[in-house]
């Protein structure tokens, strides 16, 4: 199922982009005014814009398989290279958000379920409700206002202090990993500081949703007979909850996380804009402002393919958690 959907995504995006009025070559060179009509014609040929639609589609798809997403209209570099440069930043942020979401959500979900209707439960569920109702960019800006502008604790923009960034050797592109490998504690501290606020802003929705789902499925599981049996056998409450109940309660949670990956990917674009995070989403937003359609097309493709792959991954995890289901 995954492969036909990926193919469909590629065809849909490619076709949709053809609906944009105007000529890409004009966007690329039209403004400079130094280029003759003849040269423009040559450019069109080079970009295969003179060929019929189905040939263009075929070339696009075969390029895609080889990892070729075309050339940026305004930056005159391969789109894939542009994305590759930005990818580590996006991965780092996504990872940060994911970690934040899970670290906050799982204990809250468990405690709220075990101590249902307690003060902790009520407060954290109210907070989770706010979490699902607040747009990421508003939360991000509020965090900047509180922690950066007023308290001056954390930086507002970027991934790392520019001077530290220049000295940091680029190995994986992930600043935190790089600074650990090169044993650079100052760079490590600085990149973690930069990562905190964007991760919270992006991960809050995830945390809120996971906490809510985990709580309700946990409550349901805790009522099951086998939990009563485990307790009757004299097992300690903590073990019953973490070893017996959590595993089954995680099944619906994983499904929800799978659905939320799409929200995370879309939110990623917004949060990268709020915090001037030099990732793929920011690249796309810049490309939108510059009408650089080949970059937009490339980034949308990458987002959609990531989403499809993530859903596949969720399905696989699902079978591990629930042996009753087979792929």
């Amino acid at each position, binding site marked *: 199922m995954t492969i036909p959907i990926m193919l469909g*995504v590629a065809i849909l*995006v490619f076709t949709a982009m053809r609906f944009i009025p105007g000529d890409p070559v004009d966007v690329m060179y039209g403004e400079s005014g130094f280029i003759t009509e003849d040269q423009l014609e040559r450019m069109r040929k080079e970009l295969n814009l003179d060929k019929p639609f189905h040939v263009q589609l075929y070339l696009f798809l075969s390029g895609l398989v080889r990892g070729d997403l075309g050339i940026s209209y305004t930056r005159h570099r391969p789109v894939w290279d542009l994305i590759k440069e930005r990818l580590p930043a996006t991965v780092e942020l996504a990872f940060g958000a994911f970690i934040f979401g899970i670290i906050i959500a799982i204990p809250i979900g468990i405690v709220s379920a075990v101590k249902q209707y307690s003060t902790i439960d009520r407060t954290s569920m109210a907070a989770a409700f706010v979490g699902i109702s607040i*747009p990421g960019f*508003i939360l991000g800006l509020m965090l900047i206002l509180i922690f950066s502008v*007023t308290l001056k604790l954390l930086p507002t923009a970027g991934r790392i202090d520019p001077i530290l960034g220049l000295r940091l050797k680029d190995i994986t592109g992930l600043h935190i990993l790089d600074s650990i490998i090169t044993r650079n504690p100052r760079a490590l501290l600085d990149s973690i500081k930069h990562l905190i606020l964007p991760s919270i802003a992006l991960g809050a929705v995830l945390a809120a949703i996971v906490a809510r789902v985990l709580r309700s499925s946990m409550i349901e599981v805790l009522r099951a007979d086998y939990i009563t049996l485990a307790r009757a056998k004299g097992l300690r409450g903590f073990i019953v909850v973490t070893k017996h109940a959590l595993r089954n309660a995680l099944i619906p949670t994983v499904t929800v996380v799978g659905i939320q990956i799409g929200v995370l990917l879309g939110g990623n674009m917004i949060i990268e804009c709020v915090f001037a995070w030099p990732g793929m989403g920011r690249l796309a937003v810049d490309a*939108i402002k510059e009408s650089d359609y080949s970059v*937009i097309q490339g980034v*949308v493709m990458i*987002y959609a393919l990531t*989403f499809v792959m993530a859903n596949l991954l969720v399905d696989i995890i699902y079978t591990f958690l629930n042996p009753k289901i087979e792929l």
Partner: protein
Amino acid sequence: MIELAKTSSTSAIIDLYRVKSKILISNLSSFLRELAAHRSAFLGAIVIMIFVLAAIFAPQITPIDPTKMRLQLSLLPPFWAQDEGDLARLEKQAKREVLKELIELIEIDKDYLSRLRGLSMQEMLVELGRLSEQGRLDRKDLLMLENLGKKVMVHPLGCDRMGMDLLSRVIYGTRISLLVGILVVGISAFIGVVLGSFAGYYRGWFDNLISRFCDLLLAFPYLIFAILIMVIMGGGFMNMIFALTFKAWVEFFRLVRGEFLSEKTKEYIDAARVAGQSSFKIIVFEILPNIIHSVIVLGTLRMGYMIIMEASLSYLGLGIAPPTPAWGSMVYLGKQDIITGIWWTVTFPGLAILILVLSINLLGEGLHDILDPRLRVD
């Protein structure tokens, strides 16, 4: 004889409808009672009502024009944070606007005008009163000028960078957000219900085709897809409705289709078929009334999400362009100033989005509790 049979069957049908509408009304009143008893849902409903009223009566309740730029008042803080300098700015602006109107109304010589300019607002109003007593200024115009002066002096929530009044813009912004929510959810629910009921009832190639198309649409993260459509079609209100609806109907389709699949196997459908009802009637009059509550719940919950999506698109500069008052674009305009500690341009529209979405979600969850009988078991 046939005539008689016809009339009696018609009256029977009318009776049936009377009974049905009575049930409907009693259902409605019991529903309202339950809603009133559900504290959080009731609170949500009340807040939503306030927003709806604000949207409808925006021109009556807003003090001044939300798109009028007064660059002199750029980044004016909210009233409790206004200092001497801000008050002086306000007075200067008010005087300027009153004088501008005055010149339009009556002939004034230059010396008198410069004398008026030198006066404070209070003194100027006294002077205007004198003009009116002399009969040079209409009583009605005097009142108008006084009102104008008062109006410009008051900006409770301050102004944005372009000097536009934040309170008026927040109130007017309600219109865009609510309209986007209602239109997108309404259109998507309609498309989803129509396609979903036919696909779920008849199955076959039609169901296959639409379901595969849905799978394709679901492969895109929601916001990314909306951005793609907006890039292709360009900004603006209608394009945004289109971009958001393009994917939003899928969820309604899948919900309705699923419900139809399970309802179709139940006995009352067999009974209806034996009684000779047509498939169309079974779909519309038998099955739909039984599943519509879940569409309502989903619709309410999605409305909050659509409002967030609209704000996000406007924030990225793809939706509603300034100076049209929309919350997302207000935050976008205010963002550049927060580093310098200007918090109000971002916070007020942000709070508005948060409170509205929060109330809609509260109502949605409440409706879920009230309308979904499967949850009532324990």
